[in-house]
């Protein structure tokens, strides 16, 4: 009897383990549109922080979800079809690559965006390489 229980117990443990393993393996990417932003910032303020101290700002913001408001200066599509928005400065501003799933169902929102006007995006800050990289991102307004 005892051996039977032991076998069942071991099997259950293996099943649970395998279940957790599989769930981790197939874990989807975070859905940005449903995630809460860790920081709400103005584009110019964020650029200022990275210019002042890149390392400190990277530690503070890298891999965090940011809600950023600023002036849209470039709206573009990359060769692979990704929508690209750049805030404040074409060369050294904030570069936001839009989430392809979100973009697919929100083309109207993207089309309605006008360069020169203000925009608010939410996305994961990836750090600083000549400009602040944010991806994937979604447009809030």
């Amino acid at each position, binding site marked *: 009897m005892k051996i039977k229980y032991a076998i069942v117990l071991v099997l259950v443990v293996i099943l649970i383990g395998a279940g957790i393993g599989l769930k*981790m393996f197939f874990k989807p990417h975070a859905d940005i549109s449903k995630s809460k932003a860790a920081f709400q910032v103005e584009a110019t303020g964020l650029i200022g922080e990275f210019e002042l101290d890149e390392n400190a700002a990277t530690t503070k913001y890298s891999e965090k979800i940011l809600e950023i408001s600023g002036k849209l200066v470039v709206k573009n599509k990359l060769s692979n079809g990704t929508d690209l928005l750049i805030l404040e400065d074409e060369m050294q501003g904030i570069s936001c690559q839009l989430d392809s799933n979100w973009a697919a169902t929100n083309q109207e929102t993207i089309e309605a965006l006008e360069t020169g006007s203000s925009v608010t995006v939410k996305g994961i800050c*990836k750090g600083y390489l000549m400009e602040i990289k944010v991806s994937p991102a979604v447009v809030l307004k």
Partner: protein
Amino acid sequence: MLKKLFILIFITASIGVFGQGKFIAKNAYISFFSSTPMEDILGESNEAVTILNAETGEIAFQALMTTFHFKRALMEEHFNENYMESTKFPKAKFTGKIEAYSKTMLSAPLADIKVTGTLSIHGVDKTITIPAKLGLENGKLAGTTKFKVVPEDYGIAIPSLVRDKIGKEMEVTVKANYLPFGQ
């Protein structure tokens, strides 16, 4: 503002020339690929930055490790946290020079070239020579390369449990469309 200036000077200085013909690609493509029995591992980024000095044939290339995107969230996590240690070493860099460079390479159709320089990944520098292509593609200056990298050469430890399942070498692919810059 000062920081911007410093960065500009740094980038300019790092490729060794001031105010002359330069080309930049701000959304260059870089990927690395490895095949495993379970599934292929492909990490891609569209956010690499590269500058080509038209006077000297020097090339600077940088990519942020965190911008690599994978099919599975877990792969991305392992890539950044276990293998590349992206918080400690956020950027991969290459600075090199085109062998037997001549300015005519920039106005000729895509042709084979060789680039020798220093590749810095995971805090380890190595001198490498890579085959590449440079020249006009659809009327625009483009650069591409495909080369192999051995993770262990750059102090990237892969646990023995999975080591045998991943190819010894990773294939790196780069594609950049250059635009004139800063003139």
